[in-house]
């Protein structure tokens, strides 16, 4: 291949070509590899785990379109087209699962979401640094404790035989409640755990936004005769508005994401009517079915859920970009 370029006279009157266009691709790759060899080596573990552990399972989703058999493998199993998806739309239990999933998510949004905002507003009014720090530290400790421990503690306190809650109920002359086996109590318990585990954690973001407020604003308001409540509502609250909107948009985007660990630890067959959600159903297909598990059907259910969740996250990410000027990614 003839090199394009401008010929000039170099040293000793020899013609030297100064390349005007890029060198051939192969050569450029070679040069880049040589120059950035160590950089690519550093990237190697990341690329390998991206391919094997993150794209591997994504590729595995093709079994939703197959009659998957563990003996024949992902590549060897025969195609089934949209058979499993048609089955999903004829399965009345799917509606129940969708309903349970959305009810849990909406409860999380309505009940769990405002609590850290209120907590942060009042915590911000504490002027003694020591008390402020103490309260905040204790409030977000539960976030770092495992779901298994939290569920264990909850069930110990609610135990029908010796739990402190049922002791109180019995002391009032009523009969003990078997919380663990009651479908009506599942959702309140789930939401309670979520509040306990996350309110202090979520409040950290709001508190940080509040500390950025210019103290001169409060002083000016005081000169105008504003009291505590007026300042809270008209200075502190607007100062965290962007954070609140962002967090709200993120929560809406995560509406299909339930805390699978928590539900798997909390539920049992007597509370399926309220506790069974899409992910737990898929989990049971995979690990608790009698006979051969129908992996293809479970994956099809999960695929539909993932598509819905993906669309929702992309939409909310756009919304966050537009209304709060921040993005998730």
């Amino acid at each position, binding site marked *: 291949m003839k090199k394009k370029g401008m010929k000039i006279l170099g040293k000793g009157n020899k013609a030297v070509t100064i390349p005007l266009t890029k060198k051939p691709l192969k050569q450029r790759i070679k040069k880049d590899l040589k120059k950035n060899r160590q950089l690519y080596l550093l990237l190697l573990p*990341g690329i390998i785990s991206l391919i094997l552990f*993150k794209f591997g399972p994504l590729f595995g989703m093709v079994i939703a379109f197959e009659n998957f058999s563990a003996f024949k493998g992902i590549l060897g199993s025969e195609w089934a087209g949209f058979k499993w998806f048609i089955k999903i739309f004829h399965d009345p239990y799917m509606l129940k699962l969708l309903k349970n999933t959305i009810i849990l998510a909406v409860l999380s949004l309505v009940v769990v979401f405002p609590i850290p905002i209120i907590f942060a507003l009042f915590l911000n009014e504490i002027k003694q640094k020591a*008390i402020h720090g*103490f309260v905040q530290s204790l409030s977000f400790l539960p976030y770092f404790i*495992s*779901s298994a421990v939290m569920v264990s503690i909850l069930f110990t306190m609610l135990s029908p035989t010796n739990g402190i809650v049922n*002791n109180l109920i019995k002391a009032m002359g009523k009969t003990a409640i078997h919380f663990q086996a009651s479908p009506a109590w599942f959702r309140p318990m789930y939401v309670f755990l979520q509040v306990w585990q996350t309110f202090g954690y979520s409040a950290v973001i709001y508190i940080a936004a509040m500390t950025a407020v210019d103290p001169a604003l409060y002083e000016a308001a*005081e000169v105008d005769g504003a009291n505590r409540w007026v300042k809270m509502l008209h200075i502190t609250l607007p100062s965290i508005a962007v954070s609140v909107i962002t967090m709200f948009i993120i929560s809406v985007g995560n509406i299909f994401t339930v805390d699978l660990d928590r539900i798997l630890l909390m539920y049992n067959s007597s509370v399926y009517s309220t506790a069974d959600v899409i*992910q737990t159903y898929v989990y049971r297909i995979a690990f608790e079915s009698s006979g051969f598990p129908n992996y293809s059907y*479970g994956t099809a259910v999960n695929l539909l859920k993932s598509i819905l969740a993906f669309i929702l996250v992309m939409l909310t990410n756009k919304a966050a970009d537009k209304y709060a000027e921040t993005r998730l990614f």
Partner: protein
Amino acid sequence: MKKSSIRNKRRITVFDSVNNTVLLLIAVVCIYPFLYILFIACSDGTFLTRGQVDFFPKGFNIESFKYVLTNPKFDIFTGMKNSFIYTLFGTLIAVVFTYITAYALSRPRLKQRYVIMTLFVITWVFEAGIIPQYIVYSKLGFIDNIWVMIVPGAINTQFLLITKAFLDGLPAELEEAAFIDGGTDFQTLTKVFLPISKPILATIGLFNAVSIWNQYLVPQMFLKSDNLKTIQQILKSVVITSGNSGTVFTNVMRNGFTLNQNNMKAAAIFIAMTPIACIYPFVQKYFKKGILIGSVKG
């Protein structure tokens, strides 16, 4: 006028005292359940059966801890040991992998960095679900293999974004200066960038450690042998599932104290949360920092 109003702010009003009291109460309510478990674990079983333990231990003893840790039928000791090993090595690998990947992806001369970052984000937003994950990971040999706790989850996309954002924020002159001195990429990384990255390393290390220690789903999917189970799995089988009629729990006498199933369960729960409760006071400032940078994703 203005001065006096500022002085007013410093004075403790009725609002302040009520607000302080209520919030302190909330903080106490938050951790009371943990204390309650401790009180049960330290009480004599006979008082528990009568429902007399609420706000302090009765018949104080620590026999329940000794009993559940030494009695092999509970597997508490094995579970703790396994969880410690997985957390230690998992965190180490996670921090190294996340950091070097973020470092490479934050170098502008790496042309492919946007493509690679986008691929990471896609796998983060679009979940494959547990069945394809289970099938592919079993093909890779992860069933009953402790490496499932260490390697596949090492690079968490969110932590990768956080670390990359931190490295992007460092001045480009740092690298240029190192190159002028003839440093290679490895040398620049270890000698120049690593020492100033301590805060971000501590933060992602802690978050990784907590998430490995706490996770339940992954070990439950892949680790089926009793001798590989984590403390979280043991809690599920010993405390949550066994109900009230479990034959594992027969009342025993130890050094003059009665131990019943509630003592033993409470001791197991408390042991499982001890490591995090112990490090928490010392590292909570990193946790707080982590929450903040995690919330403003790059």
